[in-house]
């Protein structure tokens, strides 16, 4: 079972929608969330959304023009920068993730 790394105040999350026949940078609408600007409750909520995506993450998302959500996590642990990349097929993406990407809102 995949796990999220520890996401402290220095972490950032970049969400984008990728792929598709009409793949375009403008349509990917990347959204970057800086944990330093979130309070503890918000950080917990975001981590909860991301944990909910872990079972659906797939290395072969995007095949045949299917769209997918890309989650890029940048974090720091033991004095080292770390990165984690998750790709979640559109048809399996939890609604909370889509809302966070689309509106920047948490339920």
């Amino acid at each position, binding site marked *: 079972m995949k796990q999220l790394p520890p996401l402290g105040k220095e972490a950032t999350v970049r969400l*984008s929608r990728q*792929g598709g026949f*009409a793949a375009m940078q403008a349509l990917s609408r990347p959204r970057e969330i800086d944990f330093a600007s979130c309070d503890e409750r918000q950080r917990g909520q975001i981590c909860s959304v991301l944990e909910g995506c*872990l079972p659906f993450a797939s290395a*072969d998302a995007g*095949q045949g*023009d299917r*769209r997918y959500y890309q989650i890029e996590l940048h974090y720091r642990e033991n004095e080292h920068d770390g990165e984690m990349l*998750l790709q979640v097929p559109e048809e399996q993406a939890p609604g909370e993730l889509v809302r966070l990407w689309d509106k920047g809102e948490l339920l």
Partner: protein
Amino acid sequence: MHNSTMRHGFIPPYILSRIIEHGSAPQRERALGTLSHIHHLLPNPGPPNRQPIASVLPERDLPGEPRRSIHDAGQQMLLPGMLARIEGQPPVGDAGVDEAYEALGKAHECFWQVFGRDSIDNHGFPLIGTVHYGVGYENAFWNGAQMVFGDGDGEIFNRFTRSLDVVAHELTHGVIESEAGLLYFDQSGALNESLSDVFGVLVKQFSLKQTADQADWLIGAELLTDKVSGSALRSMANPGSAYDDPLLGKDPQPAHMRDFIDTRDDNGGVHLNSGIPNRAFYLAARALGGYAWEKAGRIWYDTLCDQRLAKDADFVAFAGLTIDNAVIRFGAGSSEAQAVRQAWTDVGVLVL
């Protein structure tokens, strides 16, 4: 407590390749092991094996006859949706349903008459399409068993069934899956996308009986609404020139290897770097003249079906095989083989 290997989750193979090229010895070793594992996990899926409901489509009498069924998702995102039109039925009056039915028929006809290929798997695989998928859905895709088309949002995109080459592009993804199974990332993914564009435009040109110099070589010329400043989604003749719009930006496709885009987005830029092999095909087809499906198309089809084409082939490997197949079909030193080699040279893909 985290396991350090698990923590990094999924690293796309193109990033692993970069680590192998540029990383330290231990990094390279770990990346090589992981990449080898990924390749083990990603075999060629082979012909699609999901079949439609047995009662939906009648058995056909002769090879080369299409077996189409078009379904209506009713703006939901459930597949395949309600059956709307089946093989042999007259138009139903729904533009999306009828466009998908006609376009799949034209794509099937081109593959059968030009290349002798009987549908996606060359064994009469049923052509299943779903239209009206989602609300304002701005995409079309192949899901491993069928094709799916959105209606577009009406602001940027029209219905995705409006462009014959788009429907044929999605069908070709199924053909590629049945043949080379090109992995959908980095250069092999760009080749996968390019081949879908190539056979997409060939279906359109075959349908219109256009020669290479008469064709527009555009992908999705009917997709963009009047509100968008652009002629199509992609241009095979001049990658990077299809649109230039305040909202969408400028078409970023490269036309030459010197402009190859190194990115982790879009499965490693599969819809971007496909511009390079797209232009190579265009240059070969224009140099050879006449109908593009007769020579250049034939060479590219032979290459797609060539057992030597590896699922992780890069541009150079693919280019080498197109030249080889030109020699096999037209002879060593033939103008066809020379034109294909020159086309690849002109886009910066150099075959020794």
